[in-house]
């Protein structure tokens, strides 16, 4: 036993074993790099990304009923919803809706609090901007969703 281990030590078996591992990983097919703008990463359904305000697809009306639950649930208090009761329909309507993306930590608590599925964290993930100003999203931007800058010509 002692002898075999000595022989193995002299023959550098341990080092050769390591070399073998790195050697057989060389074929390009083993590479796991994603060439990002060309290859888009797979985003799963539950991903919490860019927020979006949904509207009713039939009527185009916003689903938001200005209940303010999301604003209350937000740990960072970055959602500000102001609404007014419309005398005609007796329903509250959105006056201003802002979402400060720069402070958001995508915990999903607002999405869970929303009682009408109006606020949703979508699968869009390309949120980087050159300035902080663009990070405060208003209702129009939230309803439009993400329009990532196209780097391709």
């Amino acid at each position, binding site marked *: 036993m002692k002898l075999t281990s000595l022989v193995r*030590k002299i023959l550098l078996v341990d080092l050769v074993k390591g070399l073998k591992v790195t050697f057989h990983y060389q074929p390009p097919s083993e590479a796991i790099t994603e060439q990002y703008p060309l290859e888009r990463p797979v985003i*799963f359904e*539950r*991903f919490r990304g860019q927020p979006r305000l949904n509207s009713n697809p039939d009527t185009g009306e916003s689903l938001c009923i200005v209940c303010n639950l999301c604003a209350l649930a937000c740990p960072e208090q970055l959602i500000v919803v102001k609404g007014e009761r419309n005398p005609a329909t007796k329903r509250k309507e959105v006056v201003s809706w802002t979402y400060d993306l720069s402070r958001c930590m995508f915990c999903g*608590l607002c999405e*869970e609090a929303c009682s009408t599925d109006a606020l949703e*964290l979508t699968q869009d993930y390309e949120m980087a901007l050159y300035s902080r100003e663009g990070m405060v999203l208003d209702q129009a931007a939230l309803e439009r969703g993400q329009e990532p800058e196209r780097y391709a010509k």
Partner: protein
Amino acid sequence: MSERTDYLDLDTKDETFLDATELVLNMGPQHPSTHGVLRVILKLDGEKVLGTECVIGYLHRGVEKIAENRTYAMFNPYVDRMDYVAAVSNGLGYCEAVEKLLNVEAPPRAQYLRVILTELCRIASHQVWLGTHALDIGAITPLFYCFRDREEVLKIFEKYCGARLTTHAFRIGGCIYEAYEGFEQDCKKFCDAFLPKLDEYEELLTTNRIWGERTKGVGILNPEDCIALGVTGPVLRASGVKWDLRKAQPYESYKDFDFEIPTGLNGDTYDRYLVRIEEMRQAVRIIRQAVDGLPQGPIMAKVPKVIKPPVGEVYHSIEAPKGELGYFIVSDASTQPYRVRVRPPSFVNLQALDKMVRGLLVADVVAVIGTLDIVLGEVDR
């Protein structure tokens, strides 16, 4: 920054050009292998370490103060940001502590889901540790293999709760996300694929003579020192103390599973490496058992919408990948916790650094920092 010279009691009175034997080396906060913004001031004689002092707090965000100004549910995502490589464990500890305060218990299915995710997270955390630890010692390649396999864990996290790193996976009272379709298969597939990969890491490191020489006998901590310094987790177990909160004070459904607690003999860096590698194997074992025995049923206990625990205080701790992660919560019957104290394993373990590196060489300092497996987000909170 304000200059301080009294970090180490340097004997400067008769320091001339020739007998200036002591060298003060400032390692960090910007240094490749301090795992974040740790600053270690080393007092050296040549390359031999005479003493160290850690300067921490560069990543201090006042998590405990934030907790006092948030409701119980709102604070949940913040704990993910402490030990950001093992966010799921942090969330588990916090949710359980609040549940204890509320005197509710998560339903069995939620408990199993929590166990599966926490053990996956343990694997992910240990893989980050292994990769960076090997990188510190000069082997650059294991890092990439580890991250490749960790990616599979993160994919499961993303599919399950929508985030990869700061997961916010659990809620007070259970889990909010039901296991997605194919969750069991994904976990099993990962377990099957992961074990051969683990053998591969071992081929690269365990038997390698350079790895052995760099880690064996380096940074020895004996059990008495470990206990006196409050060191927990794999570091304690590598010193031969068979103590794991999952067995000692089982929480969640850990008592249902059959697994071993690996311990070391010498308490050196090599033993800590072996203990963590074995822990990954045991985690795979737990995941397999939990996936097979995943019960049906609700995943959320009855918890009021507005969480208002009775007046009281609770200390609850879990076995995080780094050690004992405890939450001490004082409630004054309002919606916000009166005081949340986090007992971070990295912070306490880091204290052992000085004892471990005295008399070693500079190269060992990085090996020891690596083997302590600290995350500065947790040290500084």
